[in-house]
Structure formats: C-alpha cells, structure tokens
C-alpha cells in the first residue's frame, strides 16, 4: 500500500517539478512577449475559477468582467487620488467588487436563468456607463493612465512572479472551498435548488457568499491588471469577456475543479496564437469551441476523467465493501 502510494505520488511529483521549474524559469529565457502572455493566462485562470463559483450554484451571469473592472478602477483610483500603497488599493478593490456582487445577488434573489442573465447584463451596462461618464474619477473614455506600478517594478518579470503567486493562492483557496461542505452545498444548489432548500440550505445566503468570493478574486485580479498595465479604460474590459470566461469554463469542463484552469490556459494560448491569423482568429476560436462542445460535452477534463474511470482502476468498488471501508473521499465537486 505504502509502495503503491509513493509510486502514485511520484507519478505526479516528477512532471509537476519539471513543469513548475520550467514555468518559474520562463521569464529568464523567453521573450518578454511570452512572459506577458503568461501573465494574461494567469489572470484568465483567476477569472475562470472565480466565475465557476457562482456558475455551480446554477446562476450564469454576464457581468463577471464588471467585477474585474470594479477591482481595477477602485484600485487605480485609490492609488491615483489618495496615493495609497498598492496593498491597500488591492484589498479595497477586491472588497468593492465583492460588495457589488453580493448586492447584485440580493436584489435579484428571485431571478433565475435567462432573467438573471439579462439583469446581470443590465448591471454591466450600468457600470460601463459609470466608467464612461464619471470622468472626474474614471477619466471617461480615455481612462486612467500612469497608474503607479507595484513596488516600483517597471519590467515584466516581477509581475510574472507576483501574479503567478496570486494565481497559486487562488487555486488553493478554491480547492479548500470545493473540498468543504460549503462547496458541496453550492453544487447541491446547482443540482436541485428546491431540494437544497428543504434540506435546510439557505440558498440566497450561499449564493451571496459564492458571488462575493468569486467577485473578490476577480476584483483582486483586476487590481493586479491595472497596476501591471499602468493604464485602464472601458475598452480594457469589453463586455464579451464574460462570454470568453464562460467558454473557458465549458471547454475545460465546468463540473471539474481543473476544468476552468485547463480551459483558460488552452484558449488564451489559442487566441494569442490566432492573432497571427488576423481576421480568421475569431473563426478559429469558434471552431475549437464547437469541436470541444461536440466531441467532449463534459469538457476536456471531463473527458479525461471518463476515460480514466473506463480504462483505469475503478475508483469505487460499490456496495457493502465500500460502506465497510468508509465513504468515498470528498474531493473536487
């Protein structure tokens, strides 16, 4: 048993160590452009993971990018107008986004499906107007320029490590969340809301907390983005971003913990690669999306899991044996 475990452990350890070291070394041998692409990938991972949190409770929103924008604007404005240090701007940016999300869920507590989607779309519209029109604060269409960098760093490399570290923190926190009973209860709400309610789950409260945590991380990512780029404007947050976030989740497999991560990495890379194709980029992206949806309805990670259970070791034995040995481990979903 011990031998088996250590072998299984090693299977994971070796690729992780090699991959991790390659990733850590990347800024030192790649071009700055690649480092920049990786930073975008990290931010997109955070966006996809934070989006999934509300998604699993059965609410598909159109305004996740707005929480990203709220984090970015709040952080940038605090730094510019009040000269606050980055740490405080970062925290307040995230909290502002979380508060906005909790408020949105509270006022839409009775809306579901298409209705919630449309209300969240209206929220996005309202906030876009605020960013465009509140010129004294947001700089209107021309945005905010020369946002102070984080701790004075002006090259790409330090940002690579800062944002990588924060992405790791995000993944870890999400892992803890989904592993907990609270995480399972979020899944339960998504599966059958009315049943969740009558077994004593406070659906509204859970959704508010899920939305707030999701928006908190999206807001943090927005703050990192603002201080990394040094410039934000309404065009930095196009409204289609949420659709892209949704597509990353679906392509990777939204039911699986690693799904949004795989989707965000792959599709960000593909769309950057697609830039070379000019006008064909959107068609290429759409083709990949359609191919994945048709060939793997549970996403890439979903397919991998299905294949593993079909061809690999059976995960659960079922029946009395399993009950005697204790219930299956509570992981992922």
């Amino acid at each position, binding site marked *: 048993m011990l031998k088996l475990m250590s072998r299984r452990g090693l299977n994971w350890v070796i690729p992780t160590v090699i991959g991790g070291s390659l990733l850590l070394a990347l800024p030192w041998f790649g071009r700055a452009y690649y480092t920049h692409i990786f930073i975008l990938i990290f931010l997109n991972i955070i966006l996809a993971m934070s989006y999934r949190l509300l998604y699993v409770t059965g609410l598909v929103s159109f305004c996740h990018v707005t929480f990203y924008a709220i984090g970015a604007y709040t952080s940038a404005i605090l730094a510019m107008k009040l000269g606050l240090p980055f740490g405080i701007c970062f925290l307040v940016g995230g909290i502002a986004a979380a508060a906005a999300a909790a408020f949105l869920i509270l006022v839409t507590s009775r809306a579901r499906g298409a209705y919630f989607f449309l209300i969240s779309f209206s929220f996005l519209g309202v906030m876009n107007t605020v960013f465009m029109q509140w010129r004294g604060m947001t700089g209107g269409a021309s945005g905010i320029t020369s946002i102070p960098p984080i701790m004075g760093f002006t090259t790409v490399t330090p940002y690579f490590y800062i944002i990588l570290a924060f992405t790791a923190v995000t993944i870890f926190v999400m892992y803890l969340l989904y*592993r907990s009973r609270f995480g*399972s209860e979020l*899944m*339960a709400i998504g599966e059958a809301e009315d049943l969740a309610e009558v*077994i*004593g789950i406070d659906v509204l409260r859970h959704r508010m907390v899920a939305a707030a945590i999701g928006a908190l991380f999206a807001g943090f990512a927005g703050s990192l983005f603002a201080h990394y780029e040094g410039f934000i404007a309404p065009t930095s947050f196009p409204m289609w971003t949420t659709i892209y976030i949704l597509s990353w989740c679906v392509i990777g497999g939204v039911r699986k913990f690693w799904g949004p991560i795989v989707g965000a990495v792959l599709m960000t890379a593909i769309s950057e690669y697609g830039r070379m194709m000019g006008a064909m980029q959107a068609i290429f992206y759409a083709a990949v999306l359609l191919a994945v949806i048709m060939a793997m309805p549970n996403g890439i990670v979903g397919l991998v899991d299905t294949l593993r259970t079909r061809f690999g070791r059976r995960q659960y034995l079922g*029946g*009395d044996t399993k*009950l005697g040995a204790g*219930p299956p481990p509570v992981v992922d979903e």
Partner: protein
Amino acid sequence: MAILEVDKVTKRFGGLEALRDVDLQVESGELVGLIGPNGAGKSTFFNILSGVTRPTSGKVFFQGEDITGMKPHRIAEKGLARNFQATRLFGNLSVLKNIQLACHIPARTNIAGDVFRLPSVRQRESEAQQKAIDIVKLGGLEVVSDELAKNLPHGYQRALGVAIALAVGPKLLCLDEPVTGMNAEETRFMMGFIEKIRKEGITILLVEHHMRVVMDICDRITVLNFGRKIAEGKPDEIQGNKDVIEAYLGRPEDVT
C-alpha cells in the same frame, strides 16, 4: 400536544382556489394519510407546510410555533422535512453524498470554519457521515451507495428521496406519493422503509394515491377534494364514506 396544527389555510393562484379553509391536526407519533383525487390541492398543501409557497390566508403551527411564511430552510431546521412528488435528487452526486448533505442541521457551522476544516468541523463531519451511513442502511441503499443518484433505477431514486428527507432529522416527515410508479415489490420495500421510520418515533404525514398502502398503514386519513376537506377519520370509516366514494367515482346519476 399536536405536533402540526393547520388552521384555515386558503391558497389562491389568481382566480383559482387551490385550497380553502383547510384544517388539519397531526398528533405526535401518528401516521396521517392525506388523500384526494388529482388536483385536490395535496401538493399545494405540502408546499405550504414546507414553506415553498405562502398561504393566501390561514396559519400553520409546528410544535406550537407559527411557521407560516417562514423560509424553507428555517422550517427544515425546526424539524419538518419533506420529499418531492417528482423525483428531486442531487443527480450528479453519489447516493451517500446526497444523504450526507442533508445530515447537517444539528452540525451547522460557519463557512470559514468549514473551508479551513477546523477540528470541530471535522468531528461534526465525521458524525454526519456516520449518520448518513446509518440512513443508507435503514433505507436498504447499501448496494448503490456509491452510484450517482441520476443513474439509479426509479425505485431506488424514490427511496433515496425519502432517505434525504429523513437525514434532515425531522420530527415530522411529509411524504409526497412515495410509491408512485412502483411495482408491487418496490411498493412493499418502500412500505417497509416507512414502517422503520415510524419505529424511530417520527411522525409522518403521507400523501398517496395507492389506496392499499394508505388503508394499510395510516392511523387516520384526511380527504381533500377541490381544495376542501371533505372527510376525516379512521381508514375503515373513510372507506365507507359516501362523499369520498363520490369524489373518487362520481355520483351514480352522473354515470347514466
């Protein structure tokens, strides 16, 4: 003392009157049947008890406390649980996990403690898990305990629905047509399950169309028709009641 007391509950949906001035008393430890033709208002009545819908007027008292209009999760916490007529399960979770999720009410904790797995949370979770396993055994679901709920045969799905409600730890369990669509063997199995629940000292309110089941196991029966209570009494009294026979079969002159 009556565990459940329903006082003149009326529910209108626009112009349609689903329930009118319905009274009901359930004593602690009883198994009370609620029957009536389709559309009589039974499911609406259950939705009102469990807080899914609010009555237009009237009151519901549970253990002497007014629970009218309370949110469903609060009512569940008070100890009133239900299943659903149409099978509702957490389809993509295992049978054990379905039950375990419902086993939390005495183990309520805060989200932060939950996420960071404080020792107290672990303790409670393992207790919840043990309780879930006991309920799996009580419901005869051992063989399928690791299957995803959506992959179960119908009979097991219905039994799981009841097991989930039982896991809430109710004092009053409201069962909405637990044997619907079951064959004779599955029905016998489910009746055995209900008997076992009853032996645990849990009061049961049962909505069912299957007359044999109702007449066999209920202490008392209440009959609804078109939203009104038309009869109440022991099974043999109900079987001979003229109004009830009319409600189900129509009046003799209607036939000719």
